[in-house]
């Protein structure tokens, strides 16, 4: 697209690329480098770029001394099930909005989609006593249910834009063949929407996985803590200065999702951008 034949163009392009690349990747490099440094090397006014005497002590400490494995497990369970719940609900709502006509449909859709704008922290004010009344405070189930807040409205919209593109003729033909409505949804519509489903699922997962606000407030039992508050509370107190340990823990905490993401990112980008780019 760009013409990089001239020296000047190459220079400008190269400098901008290097600068942004450095901004994006240096922090990652620094996290990895610090995580392999012994304490004496971490606390230096002028640190060396790479560990001089690399050690895995920080990793051993992160895995044995802290509850990190438990936090990870909790995060994967709550974010995973939260994303699943969000996707199922969003599929139902979006398919109904896209392919069925009934009174109040547009108003309902407008209401659900505009809820993207409701401030999450404000919802928490009432969600907290609500969960309390339902006996779901400090439970994984309560957290999973709360996580639909993050992505149900936008997920419904994303899937709506997927479903609306599926030709109604295909559905009509299946109906003519005598297929039940449920069968049409599961056998015809959903397989055609896999990138959309993956997108909404991942989008919801990322919100829940990143969450600190809800889990910090709704969960008080250390054995139920997720990664965000778990890391924060581990390194906020007296051990706040253990940067080697914090970086090693951070790296471990990031790995599962990095791997999972590498597997599905192709779908994801495709799905996420479909609505935005087609027009």
């Amino acid at each position: 697209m760009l013409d990089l034949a001239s020296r000047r163009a190459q220079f400008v392009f190269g400098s901008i690329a290097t600068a942004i690349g450095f901004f994006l990747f240096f922090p990652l490099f620094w996290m990895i480098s610090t995580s392999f440094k012994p304490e004496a090397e971490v606390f230096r006014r002028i640190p060396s770029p790479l560990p001089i005497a690399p050690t895995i002590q920080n990793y051993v400490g992160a895995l044995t001394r802290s509850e990190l494995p438990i936090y990870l497990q909790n995060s994967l369970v709550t974010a995973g099930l939260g994303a699943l719940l969000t996707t199922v609900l969003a599929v139902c709502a979006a398919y109904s909005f896209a392919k069925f006509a009934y009174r109040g449909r547009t108003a309902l859709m407008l209401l659900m989609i505009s809820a993207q704008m409701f401030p999450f922290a404000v919802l928490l004010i009432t969600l907290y006593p609500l969960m309390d009344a339902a006996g779901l405070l400090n439970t994984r189930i309560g957290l999973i249910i709360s996580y639909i807040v993050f992505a149900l409205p936008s997920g419904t919209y994303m899937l709506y834009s997927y479903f609306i593109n599926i030709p109604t003729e295909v559905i009509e033909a299946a109906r003519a063949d005598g297929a039940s409505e449920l069968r049409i949804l599961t056998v015809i519509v959903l397989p055609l929407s896999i990138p959309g489903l993956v997108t909404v699922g991942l989008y919801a997962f990322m919100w829940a996985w990143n969450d600190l606000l809800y889990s910090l407030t709704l969960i008080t039992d250390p054995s139920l803590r997720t990664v965000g508050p778990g890391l924060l509370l581990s390194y906020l107190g007296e051990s706040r200065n253990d940067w080697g340990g914090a970086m090693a823990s951070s790296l471990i905490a990031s790995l599962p999702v990095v791997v999972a993401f590498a597997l599905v990112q192709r779908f994801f980008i495709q799905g996420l951008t479909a609505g935005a780019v087609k027009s």
Partner: protein
Amino acid sequence: MKTTRREFLAAASALGFGAAAGPAFAQQRTLTYIGWSHDEAASKPVLTEMFNAFSTANPSVRLETIGFPWAQMQQNLILRMRAGQPLDVAQLAERWLPTFAALNNLADLNELFGRAALEEKIDAGLLRIGQSGGKQLGLPWTAASIGMVANRKVLGDAGVNQIPTTVDQFVGALRAIKRSNPEAVPYALATKNNLSMSPDFQVWLWTFGGRLLDNDGAVKVNGEAGVRALSFLVDLMKENLAARDIDRPDARRLFGQHRTGFYADAPLARGFARDNSGQGRAFDQYVAAAPYPVVAAGNNPQSVAWGHLLVMPIIGGRRPTRDGDAARFVQHLAFNDDMQMKYFEAVGLFPVTKTALARVRDDAYVTQWARYASFAEADEPSKWANAADLTTIVGEEVQAALLQQKPPQQAIADMARRLEQRMRDVRRG
């Protein structure tokens, strides 16, 4: 889901399935304790030992201990109590008591143990830090003051051979430290966390003759003493004798590395120094209890009364009983001289029982500390139920001045105005 599992197990054992899981398991009762000290590296080993001693002596009780960082403790404890989570015994800072008393679900220990029995064990004066609204809601576990700690090596290297007692001598010592080691933070004044800045500022305020509030809650800070105290601290910052971004943990670390001359802490400063320096007891020789400097020689050195309490919340209508597990656990920690001494030996926290106190009289660090602590005053916001709010206001305005966002006069005026607004609300009921 944990709760559901617990409920399920309870239901299962009620139905007679419990026997299948083994008799010991079926009979074990869970005792939940929440605190912050056992979460801190310095006190962790000794507290684990003390907890284990309790478990050994009470095989039918399964002790579950939960830890939060100190700065997050109060907030999380309220969250947990509001959620009705199991909780039998909790560790409180003495200054949080009014807030928790307002929740109206702490057991009165006078009813539980009897007033006379308590006073026989612990001095009536000490018991006061656990009282609120005429009830003994908290049992003192350790009590002393937040006073000044000095690093003898840093002072010695700077040629300061006498621990300063007046403000002028103090500033002189700080300058000497800065000259001898430009990278040092001569006085690690709290400049980051409201919870630490508020008490640090109050001691200086009292030193210069001021008060935040009077006994009826009228705001008194807006006066000459307030401005003088805050200006004094701001000048220390300007002269690089104190630094930005310092909280208690940072100060303790600097102290253990011989990079600060003074900071304010409770007597467990010595325990932290042992731990942070990596030298253990060998470091004790450098740790000195120092008086907060006074304006004129002969004045009493100020400090903030400080202590840890053990409280027994009533959760879901479950009232602790006199010989219940919670009561026995509390007595194990606070009444048992062996445990009290063990805790003292390990981290330097003062015991509370009369008999254990008699045994530590020979320790110079303790006697020094106790002498300065005899003038200690209660943290001012603590008396009021909205203490958290008041502490935030004091901390924020102090920090604004220290970071030179506004002149001390204005910070004090703003502090007074904001405190007045909040106190009006309190008095409105």
